């Protein structure tokens, strides 16, 4: 038996995160990921996935980069490399955005929060040092950039995340989806964002590294909360239709190809002035040649990243960038790039993996409905 896939199970030679020994104490199996030793699973991916969809799961995402920008023009300067509306973003409001190369390719995807005195961003772990180099190159000295590598980041996700966290901090009830704020719990200062990567309601909690174990222990002491590994994090985000950087998003992919046009805010579409604007806005107007879509796969065998989409003559016309078995739907699902004219919902295509054909159908994402706690319309 041998693994064909990308997860490296070899003895890791990686950095340790603040919760390393806590994970091992919880029975985690650790693997190498983004230069760190990370928990891939505790009791099993399927059980952890279902637990998060029905209760609340605690994820350690401390490998991600937490970056703070200070300086008077930080928002306007960031807008030169992000296509999102940052200048008019409300205080303690969060926006999903994309770090763009000068040709419009996606260098990373990130969450940006405007705070009273600075801007807080969370970027991907595997890309954080490259991101910083690029940002520093494109930022005047008047903006100070601080990587908060003395902080851990925990995500609490699931339909019971709200009640679970409110049992410790009742004030988090005031947060709705994509809002954030500063809170305190038992001597710990926490920056809490109501956001996540599972499609469920939930929070991302920034905490000083020395308090990470205490916080994780408190949260998992709640009867509705269990620790969840990276394996279930991947299957949850796939069901939620959320792209994974380095797989579904790369420097060769633009925001419109990735079907992330919502990240181009109105004023920015009208005014441009961001890296790659000419190409990206052109594609926004005229459409891109290819597009990221969701696929249902016939049968039970999963399609994985690297499988291809072929035409009737067997020529490669698209690529599967993420794929796996959906524990919630009990069937294989995938994300792929296909020619835009074949991206309509219901289009039946043929994929090929290790020489074997698979019938696939383009389907709307998310595969499993989002369950965010949105602010009621006034």
């Amino acid at each position: 038996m041998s693994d064909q896939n990308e997860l490296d199970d070899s003895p890791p030679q990686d950095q340790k995160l603040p919760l390393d020994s806590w994970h091992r104490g919880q029975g985690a199996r650790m693997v190498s990921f983004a230069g760190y030793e990370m928990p891939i699973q505790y009791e099993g991916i399927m059980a952890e996935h279902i637990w998060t969809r029905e209760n609340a799961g605690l994820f350690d995402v401390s490998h991600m980069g937490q970056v703070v920008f200070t300086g008077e023009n930080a928002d306007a300067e960031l807008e030169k490399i992000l296509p999102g509306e940052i200048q008019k973003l409300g205080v303690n409001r969060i926006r999903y955005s994309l770090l763009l190369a000068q040709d419009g390719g996606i260098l990373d995807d990130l969450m940006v929060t405007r705070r009273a005195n600075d801007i807080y961003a969370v970027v991907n772990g595997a890309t954080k040092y490259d991101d910083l180099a690029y940002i520093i190159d494109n930022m005047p000295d008047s903006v100070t950039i601080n990587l908060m590598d003395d902080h851990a980041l925990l995500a609490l996700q699931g339909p019971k995340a709200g009640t679970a966290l409110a049992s410790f901090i009742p004030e988090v009830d005031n947060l709705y989806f994509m809002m954030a704020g500063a809170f305190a719990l038992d001597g710990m200062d926490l920056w809490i964002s109501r956001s996540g990567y599972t499609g469920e309601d939930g929070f991302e909690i920034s905490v000083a590294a020395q308090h990470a174990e205490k916080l994780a222990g408190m949260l998992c002491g709640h009867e509705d909360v269990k620790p969840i590994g990276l394996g279930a994090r991947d299957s949850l985000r796939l069901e939620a239709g959320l792209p994974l950087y380095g797989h579904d998003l790369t420097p060769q992919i633009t925001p419109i190809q990735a079907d992330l046009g919502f990240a181009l805010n109105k004023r920015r579409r009208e005014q441009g002035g961001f890296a790659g604007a000419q190409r990206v806005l052109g594609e926004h107007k005229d459409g891109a040649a290819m597009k990221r879509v969701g696929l249902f796969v016939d049968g039970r065998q999963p399609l994985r990243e690297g499988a291809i989409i072929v035409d009737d003559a067997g020529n490669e016309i698209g690529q599967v960038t993420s794929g796996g078995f959906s524990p919630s739907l009990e069937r294989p699902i995938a994300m792929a790039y296909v020619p835009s004219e074949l991206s309509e919902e219901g289009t039946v295509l043929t994929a090929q993996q290790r020489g074997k054909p698979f019938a696939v159908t383009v389907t709307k994402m998310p595969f499993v409905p989002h369950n965010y706690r949105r602010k009621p319309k006034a």
Partner: protein
Amino acid sequence: MSRYFTEDHEWIDVDGNNATVGITNYAQEQLGDVVFVEVPENGKELGKGDDAAVVESVKAASDVYAPVSGTVSEGNVALADDPSLINTDPEGEGWFFKLDLSDTSQLEGLMDEAAYKEFVASL
């Protein structure tokens, strides 16, 4: 009947020229939740080390190799309906395929249960 083991975490029950092949409990623990299994067709001739079956968990796809040469006499059709048999009973109901052995001398290099246990403990 004797049971042999390979370093690829397969087990082989041998009765004369007939062998039954599966993966070990250690292997299923490493794989996690199995969601799909593809077993070889009857009559397929397999050389030692050939790809014989595919097992897919939530996170990964893996090959099962033919631990010895032979002709497939039966694939376990129950796995198509219930691939989780690999997790619940890997060394029993979760067998993969049966082989008519073409060269029983190939069994000589394989491990017995005690040696396999020692091998796993060393990993």
